[in-house]
C-alpha cells in the first residue's frame, strides 16, 4: 500500500528546508512518503482501512513519551530518539521475562505509549526488535486485565502500520480471537477487536484466514454488549472483516441468530458514532445480496434508517446510510416501494431527504445521492412521479449545470430516467412527456450537450441518448431546434469521427435523421409560407426571415 514512488515532492521538500538536518533515509523520508501516499490515496483510491489507537483519555501520561511525541513530528533527531526509546522498551520487556509482575505491566505500558504517540510511531523498530513474540506471551489465559489490555493495544498499533507490519502480528491472531470472549473485561475485548480490525482491513487473504478461525461470530457476539465503545469498535472491525469482495463473510454474518434484530436495534437507538460503524456493516451486507436486504427490511430497518438520512448533519454518518439505502433501492421495485413507504411519516419523505443531501456542498454525498435518485427514477411510473414531485429535480438541474463531472453524470442519469417509461410495459424507450417538457423548459438540455462533449464514453453516450429522446419526443420538431440553438449539432459533429464505433454510429444517425442534407435546404427554396408547409422546426436564419 505504501508505494515508494515519486521522488518529486520529497525532493522538493528537501530543497525547501535547507536548515533541517539532512535526511537521507530514515524517519523523515518515511513520513514524507507516507504523506505522499495519503495524497495518492485520494487519487488512486487505495484506502488504508486501519486505525491507530492514540489517546487514552484517562492517561495522565508518561511525560517523556509525550514530549517525544510533540517534537517527533517534524524533527528527525527527535524521531531517532523515539525509535531508540522504543527499541530499549522492547529490550526491557524481554528482560522481564515470563513472570507476571507489576513491572511487566509497566514495561508494556511504556512501550504502548511509545507506539501511540505520533502519527507514525516507530512500529518497525519494535517489530525488528522482536516485540511480537513477547506480546503473544503476554496474552495467555489468566493474565491480568492490565496486561492483556496493554499487550493488545501494542499489537493494535503494530497492526496499523505498513502491510509487513500488519502481517507481523500474525502469531498473535488466534489468541486475539479467543480473547474476544464475552467473559473478558470490556476494554480488553475492545482492544483485541481493534487489533483484529486492523488486520482484517489489510488484505483479503487475512480476512479469509480470520474467518476460517471463527473471528466473525466472536466479533459479532459483542454487538450485544451494553458497553457502547465496545460495540462501536466491534462493528468497525466487523465491517473490515466482511468487506469482501467475496460475499461469504457477509452471508455468514447474516445467518447468525438474532443478528438482524441487533443491527436494526443499533441503528434505531445508537448514538451517531455507533450508527456510523453499524451502517458500514450494512453497506457491505446490502451490497452483497438482495436476500440480506429483504431480511433487514423485514426486521424494520428502513424507518430508522431513512429517518437518519433525513435529519442527520453528520457527514460520516450520511455516507454509509445513503449508500445502504442506495444499495437497497438499486435492486428492485418492491424494495423501492418499501423505501418510499418508510419515508412517508417524514416531512418530504425519502425524496425530500435526498433533495436535502443534493443541496449539501459535499461532492461525494451529492454524487451518491444522485445515484440513489437515478435508481428510484428507474422504477415504476409511480416511483418516477414520486421523485419528480418530491423536490429532487431542482437540485439535480442545478448540479447538472454546475457541478463536477462525476456528479453531473449521475444527475443526468437521474433526470433522464424520469423521462422514459419503465421497461416492463413493453414500451421501452417511450418518453414521458409531462416530465420531459418540464425539464427541457427548465434548461436541462445544455447540461446534456456538455456531456456529449465529455471525453468519458459513457457520458457522451448518455448525452446523445438524451438528445435523441428530446428530438424524437418533443412535438412539432421543437427538439432539433433547441438542440441546434444550443450548439448541439457541433457537439454531435465532434463525435462523427470518434474512435469509438458506437458513438460514431449514434452521432451520425442523429445528425442524418434530424439534421440531414434536407435539413433547412427546403427553406431556401420556399416562399413565405414555408412555415405552414414545413413547420417551425427550421431555424429562422434558414428561413431567411427574422431572427427568432
Amino acid at each position, binding site marked *: 500500500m505504501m508505494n515508494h514512488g515519486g521522488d518529486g515532492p520529497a525532493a522538493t521538500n528537501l530543497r525547501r528546508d535547507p536548515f533541517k538536518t539532512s535526511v537521507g533515509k530514515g524517519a523523515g523520508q518515511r513520513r514524507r512518503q507516507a504523506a505522499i501516499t495519503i495524497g495518492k490515496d485520494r487519487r488512486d483510491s487505495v484506502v488504508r482501512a486501519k486505525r491507530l489507537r492514540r489517546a487514552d483519555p484517562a492517561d495522565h501520561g508518561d511525560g517523556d513519551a509525550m514530549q517525544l511525541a510533540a517534537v517527533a513530528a517534524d524533527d528527525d533527531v527527535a524521531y531517532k530518539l523515539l525509535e531508540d526509546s522504543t527499541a530499549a522498551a522492547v529490550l526491557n520487556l524481554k528482560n522481564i521475562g515470563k513472570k507476571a509482575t507489576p513491572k511487566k505491566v509497566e514495561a508494556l505500558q511504556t512501550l504502548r505509549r511509545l507506539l501511540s504517540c505520533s502519527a507514525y510511531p516507530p512500529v518497525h523498530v519494535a517489530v525488528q526488535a522482536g516485540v511480537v513474540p513477547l506480546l503473544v506471551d503476554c496474552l495467555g489465559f489468566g493474565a491480568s486485565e492490565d496486561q492483556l489490555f496493554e499487550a493488545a493495544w501494542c499489537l493494535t498499533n503494530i497492526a496499523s502500520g505498513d502491510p509487513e507490519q500488519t502481517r507481523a502480528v500474525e502469531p498473535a491472531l488466534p489468541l486475539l480471537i479467543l480473547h474476544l470472549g464475552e467473559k473478558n473485561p470490556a476494554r480488553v475485548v475492545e482492544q483485541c477487536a481493534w487489533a483484529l480490525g486492523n488486520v482484517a482491513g489489510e488484505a483479503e487473504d487475512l480476512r479469509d484466514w480470520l474467518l476460517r478461525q471463527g473471528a466473525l461470530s466472536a466479533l459479532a457476539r459483542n454487538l450485544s454488549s451494553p458497553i457502547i465503545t465496545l460495540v462501536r469498535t466491534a462493528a468497525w472491525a466487523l465491517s473490515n472483516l466482511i468487506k*469482501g469482495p467475496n460475499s461469504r463473510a457477509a452471508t455468514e454474518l447474516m445467518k447468525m441468530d438474532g443478528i438482524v434484530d441487533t443491527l436494526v436495534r443499533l441503528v434505531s437507538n445508537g448514538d451517531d*458514532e455507533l450508527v456510523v460503524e453499524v451502517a458500514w456493516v450494512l453497506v457491505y451486507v446490502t451490497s*452483497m445480496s438482495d436476500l440480506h436486504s429483504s431480511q433487514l427490511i423485514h426486521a424494520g430497518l428502513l424507518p430508522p434508517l431513512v429517518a437518519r438520512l433525513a435529519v442527520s448533519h453528520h457527514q460520516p454518518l450520511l455516507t454509509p446510510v445513503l449508500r445502504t439505502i442506495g444499495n437497497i433501492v438499486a435492486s428492485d421495485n418492491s424494495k423501492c416501494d418499501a423505501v418510499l413507504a418508510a419515508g412517508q411519516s417524514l416531512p418530504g419523505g425519502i425524496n425530500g431527504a435526498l433533495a436535502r443531501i443534493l443541496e449539501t456542498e459535499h461532492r461525494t454525498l451529492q454524487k451518491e445521492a444522485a445515484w440513489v435518485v437515478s435508481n428510484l427514477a428507474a422504477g415504476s411510473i409511480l416511483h418516477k412521479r414520486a421523485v419528480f414531485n418530491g423536490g429532487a429535480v431542482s437540485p439535480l438541474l442545478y448540479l447538472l449545470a454546475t457541478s463536477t463531472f462525476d456528479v453531473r453524470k449521475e444527475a443526468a442519469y437521474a433526470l433522464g430516467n424520469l423521462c422514459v417509461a419503465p421497461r416492463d410495459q413493453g414500451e421501452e424507450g417511450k418518453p414521458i412527456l409531462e416530465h420531459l417538457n418540464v425539464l427541457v423548459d427548465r434548461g436541462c438540455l445544455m447540461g446534456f450537450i456538455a456531456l456529449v462533449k465529455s471525453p468519458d464514453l459513457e457520458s457522451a453516450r448518455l448525452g446523445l441518448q438524451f438528445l435523441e429522446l428530446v428530438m424524437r419526443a418533443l412535438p412539432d420538431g421543437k427538439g432539433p431546434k433547441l438542440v441546434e440553438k444550443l450548439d448541439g449539432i457541433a457537439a454531435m459533429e465532434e463525435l462523427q469521427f470518434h474512435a469509438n464505433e458506437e458513438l460514431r454510429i449514434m452521432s451520425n444517425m442523429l445528425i442524418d435523421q434530424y439534421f440531414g442534407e434536407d435539413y433547412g435546404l427546403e427553406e431556401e427554396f420556399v416562399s413565405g409560407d414555408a412555415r405552414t408547409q414545413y413547420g417551425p422546426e427550421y431555424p429562422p436564419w434558414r428561413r431567411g426571415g427574422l431572427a427568432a
Partner: protein
Amino acid sequence: MDLGKMKDGAEQTSPLFRAWVAARRPFKVDSPFFAAGNVERELVAKQISLEITEEEKKHIVQSEEEQLWEIFCPIVGCRTKLKGVGELESHYLSRHSATCSICTRVFPTTRLLNLHVSETHDSFFRAKVALNYPMYECLMEGCSARFLSDSNRHQHLVDKHHFPRSFRFHVKKHASQKQRQRQKAHQPSNSGSTPKQSKKNQRAKAASESAPDVHTDRKDYESTTPSETQNQDTPMDVDELVTAVSRLSTVSQDETPSVLRFGHRRGRGVPFGQKSRGSGRGRGRGRSGRDQEDDSPPLQSIST
C-alpha cells in the same frame, strides 16, 4: 429518414440507435464509484482517533467522580478494592465470571473455562483419557477436532490455527518467592508440592491481583474459605507427567520446585459450586474441611 416522419413527433428512431432506457445501476462493493467515499471514511476516522469523543468525555467525568466511591469486592474471599461501579463491574466480569473456582484461573469465555475444568480438575475426564477416548478438544470455536492428548491438540493448534508454539493452555502455577516462604512458615509439616499440569507454565499468574492469588502448594485444608487457599489439580497420567517433566525448560530457576512428589492431598469443597463446570462427575464436593489422605481420587461422583 425523411423529414415527413419528423413532423409526427414520437416516431421511432432507427432500431440501430440505442435509445435511453431507464435501468437500475447497482454497484459492487469494491466499485471505483464508491472509492471517494471510502477514502473519506478512513481520513475522517484517523482524525477522530485523535479527539476525545463524547463517550470518552463522559467516562472521564464519571471516573473522576467515582474516585471517591470505594468498596471491596462483595464476593467472599475476594478482597479486591474497587473504585466506582465501572470498576466493580469490570472486576466482577473478569475475576468472578469465567473463573475457575478451584484454581481461580480466568478465561475469556465460558467454553474455555469448561474445557479447563474438565481437563484439569476432573478425574472422570482423566479416566476417559486413560481409556483412549479423544477428549482434548480444539480451543477454537467452530473447530470440532478432538485429540487423545494435550500434546496432540497442541500440535493441531500450531498447525491448523497458527498458534505460536510457545502457547500453553495448561499452566504450571508457581508462587512467587515471597509466597512460598510464607507457606513454608505456615505449614512446616508438609513439604513438597504437587506438580501441576504437564506443561511448564511460561505465563506466570497475574501477581497484581490481590486475594484470588493462586498458591500452588498444598494449603491448609482446615480453612473454611477454600477459595483463597484452595488449589486443586489432579495430576494427569504418570506417563504424561514423566514426559512433561522431561520437557521442562527452566526459565527461571526459583520457580521450579526442587522436589517433585506424586500423589497429593485432594482439595475439598468447591466454594461456588455453580461456577465450576465440567462433567460434574468424579469430583469431590461438599466435603469442606475434611482431610483426605488417599492418593487415588474416587471415581464415583459425589453429588452436591
